């Protein structure tokens, strides 16, 4: 019996260690870097494709991974009014379940984006899928419907004719989503179990495609809500303001956070340190030349990386903003890069070229490429040993062999 107890003690932590989830847009804290993703493939090639599986309709939201399940959303049919949540096995890509719904809000988008643009989020037990139609649907990991909201039904002018793309995030016990647009613009915290508003705050009436990022300040989780006006930090449980940065910010690439530091696509790039006392964040540096394009910046081991609209990847010191090196990638890019604990960055161009960049040397180096021959607009996801990426038509898993 004692031996059994010992073996159990040994196995359980190992099992927990082996499970590597990617629970929302740009993974942990919504910032694109997961140090526990230690062994995704650095050799991207046909041989690295573990499996691929077809998808219906259109979608550019990232895959999310919860245990042995990978989930994506899609929208299909005339005017993309059929919404899908699809669940596949991470092992072999076999379909586990699919749920379909009718859009209750407006599905008009500009041609490049689509209705299934936001990435779903998960708290490890449930999936929260948001669409440009402002349908917000919660399912458990077996596909049981837990709750639904039609946010345009509730707030009829909450929509954007160009399409909405902000992805929700789970912060402590609250699902936070930015439903920001030119008209009825707000951010809200939803109860994880019922979908009822825990809070709802008015936001600048301006179109905004950025997604919330999580900060840790004095062990408190703070949600950074970015908009054209700047960044508002709020407590996830109540929406109460903690800090505000009012120098303006981009409405497309989102911020990256590390602890109490926030790297904001503002006037190029601006790094701020957020104080626990609610004082205006201290500006650490601003570099106007480091202007991200569509891709969101990423912070890895004391360095901040941006990809500009010309497809150039820049590396700068996080402490000072001083640029260290630049390399040209094969762009253009609509998706954001992600990086793992193996010191490599992964990014996929619109033309379907996946690139792996080794960041460990004096200068970044593209060590492998794969041509997927499909348009890739969505950001990839990482787990301990794999890269997941999707196009409209296909979901791939790439693993080290």
């Amino acid at each position, binding site marked *: 019996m004692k031996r059994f107890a010992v073996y159990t003690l040994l196995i359980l932590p190992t099992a927990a260690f082996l499970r590597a989830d990617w629970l929302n847009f740009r993974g942990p804290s919504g910032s694109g870097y997961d140090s526990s993703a230690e062994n995704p493939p650095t050799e991207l090639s046909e041989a690295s494709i573990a499996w691929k599986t077809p998808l219906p309709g259109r979608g550019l939201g990232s895959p999310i991974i919860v245990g042995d399940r990978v989930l994506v959303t899609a929208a299909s049919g*005339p005017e993309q009014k059929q919404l899908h949540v699809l669940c596949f096995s991470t092992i072999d890509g076999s379909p586990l379940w699919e749920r379909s*719904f*009718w859009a209750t809000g407006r599905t*008009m988008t500009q041609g490049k984006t689509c209705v299934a643009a936001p990435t779903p989020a998960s708290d490890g037990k449930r999936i929260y899928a948001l669409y440009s139609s402002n349908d917000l*649907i919660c399912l458990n990991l077996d596909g049981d*419907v837990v*709750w639904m909201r*039609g946010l345009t039904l509730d707030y009829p002018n909450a929509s954007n004719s160009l399409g909405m793309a902000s992805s929700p995030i789970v912060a402590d016990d609250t699902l936070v989503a930015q439903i920001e647009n030119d008209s009825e613009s707000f951010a809200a915290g939803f109860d994880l179990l019922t979908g009822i508003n825990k809070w709802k705050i008015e936001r600048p009436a301006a179109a905004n495609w950025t997604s919330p990022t999580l900060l840790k300040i004095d062990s408190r989780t703070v949600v950074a809500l970015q908009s054209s006006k700047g960044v508002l930090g709020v407590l996830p449980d109540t929406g109460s303001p903690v800090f505000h940065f009012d120098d303006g910010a981009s409405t497309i690439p989102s911020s990256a956070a590390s602890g109490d530091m926030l790297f904001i696509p503002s006037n190029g790039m601006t790094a701020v340190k957020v104080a626990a006392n609610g004082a205006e964040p201290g500006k650490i540096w601003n570099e106007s030349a480091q202007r991200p394009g569509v891709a969101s910046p990423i912070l890895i081991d004391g360095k901040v990386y941006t990809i500009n609209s010309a497809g150039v990847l820049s590396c700068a010191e996080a402490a000072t903003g001083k640029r260290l090196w630049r390399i040209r990638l094969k762009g253009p890019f609509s998706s954001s890069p992600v990086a793992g604990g193996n010191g490599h960055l992964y990014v996929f161009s619109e033309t379907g070229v996946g690139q792996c960049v080794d960041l460990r040397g004096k200068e970044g180096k593209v060590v492998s490429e794969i041509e997927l021959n499909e348009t890739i607009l969505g950001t990839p996801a990482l787990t301990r040993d794999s890269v997941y990426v999707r196009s409209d038509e296909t979901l791939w898993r790439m693993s080290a062999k």
Partner: protein
Amino acid sequence: MKPLFSIIAYVISLTVTTVGGLAGDLSEAIATIKNVGPEGMGNAEAANSWKVLTQQDSSAILPILSAMKGSSPLAQNWLRSAVEVVFQKQADAHAPLPTDQVKQFLLETKNDPRARKLAFDLLTKISPDTARSLVPGMVDDPSTALRREAVALLIDKGASQMAASDQSGAEKTLQKALDAARDVDQIKKIAGLLRNKLKQPVNLPEHFGFLMYWKIIAPFDNTDHRGFAMVYPPENRIDLDASYPGKNGTVSWRDYSTSDEYGMVDFNRPFDPLKGVTGYAYTEFDSKEDRPAELRLGCKNGWKIWLNGKFVFGRDEYHRGARIDQYQLPVHLEKGKNTILIKLCQDEQHKPWTVEWQFQLRVCDSTGTAILSTDRKPTPTKAATGRRSQRNR
């Protein structure tokens, strides 16, 4: 004998209770789901009821489909997903499926259109040939989703007839397709074939029900978007002989008609491309009867709509794109004269894509079938001069 009879009676009573109980559970679960309301109201109860529904066997499929009639959009989604789960479980277990009942449900046009399309999808999984055989008969179906399938077949048939040089056959087929089509993409495709390949005239404004004749007045001020909320005189009273102080001087109503086949009312034509301005467009619509209808608007400027003096909806979004049927506004038409007033706001952006100051409006029913004014005038012919309006495609 008595104990055996008692046992049998007891077992029967249990079965009746169980079946009755299950049926009761089903009705109660459906009722709970139909009660979901705004802002997440009823979600927790609906989740429990959804579990009850998805544990049923295939006998629950028809009641759940039937329950979609009169349900809210959210409730319909709960019910839809429940039906699909029940169906899939039964299919995976190779259990019998209610094929005939699903088919009968589909054929009954009084059932909810979405539920019928769902029934069609289920029937397609059970018996694709049976489902396919029903499609040609759906060309006038009240469900636009089902009608779309039938129209697609007609388009294919028309194209085949053209390829076989059967011009007369193709004309008849494609005209039938056009009469039936309600989705914009199909209408445009058919119109293109009829006009470009078969040289047949197509009256798109009449097919869609676009309103082509207006009285318009502008410009009032919309500097800093303030005009959107400002109540200018036309919002208080329509006096087509009146003049008012406008942004750049006195303004008064003038006649306007559009020959654009998608009904585009282009304020830049009579007023030149102005910035930071507001205008109004007014028209009257004579309805044959009291009836529900939809006003369907396409517009990339700020706008408001009133019907019979009552505010319907408004939106202060600028230059994020426009398309036909962008906004679908349920209204009620009165028998006889109905007045429609549109407020159209242009902002102060100067990028090339922000020039348009225009809208298109049509009146139709919930299936997109045009409702025409009893005194509808002939579609205007193209203007001989003047700037061509930007079309919503």
